């Protein structure tokens, strides 16, 4: 009998990332991407943000907020390329691009959060 595919773990990552993205990205995007730039709300100052980012819990939160949605994208986009563009024959390339991108982004997030002044 064939060994069960490792897809289970990738799907679990996709699911976790999907939950994080659904629950938290809308409010973050709305605040920092729309409301504050448009002046509807007074955003936190640079000093305030830096202060908040000192706490390890905040950094962990931000790390999870960046990393998991990237793996959500990787999984979903990989299948969109397979089915939407019918390029299953470029399998390895698509897989590498998607998960490689997610790993890269996760690495960048870790580096940036580690180096908060």
């Amino acid at each position, binding site marked *: 009998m064939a060994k069960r595919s490792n897809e289970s773990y990738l799907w679990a990552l996709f699911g976790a990332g999907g939950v994080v*993205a659904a629950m938290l990205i809308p409010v973050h995007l*709305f605040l*920092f*991407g729309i409301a504050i730039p448009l002046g509807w709300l007074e955003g936190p100052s*640079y000093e305030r*943000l830096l202060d908040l*980012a000192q706490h390890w819990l905040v950094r962990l939160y931000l790390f999870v907020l960046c990393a998991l949605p990237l793996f959500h994208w990787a999984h979903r986009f990989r299948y969109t390329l397979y089915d*939407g563009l019918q390029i299953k024959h470029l399998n390895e390339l698509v897989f590498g691009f998607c998960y490689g991108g997610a790993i890269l*982004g996760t690495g960048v997030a870790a580096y940036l959060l580690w180096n908060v002044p």
Partner: protein
Amino acid sequence: MSGRYHPRVSTWWWLHRWGHLRFILRELTSVAVAAWVVITLWQLCALDSGPAAYAEFQARLRTPWLLALNLVSFVFVLFHAVTWFNLAPAAMVVRVGGKRVPAALIAASNYAAWAAASAFVAWFLLRG
């Protein structure tokens, strides 16, 4: 067996039914999600680089291109959230006392959690 006709699936299969198009749009929300992460990483980089860099970043966010991008992303991210919460009951079967909890209730509790989480984040960030 001779003579079987094998129709080929068009590259534009996803335009042939509204259900399929809606599905592809839903899948493309992941691009908006990734876009938000990229912009957030940019924001973190600006944060790390000092107040001048952060002010520059904030100015960039006010340019028409980025505002438009964020608005479009927001619509897609909302679409992701709504479709995600509406579909969650299909994967989560909860049984209480031998009877299955209705899908609407499962979806509703997801929406409630969404509202609570959003309110908390907004409060936390804006309380200054």
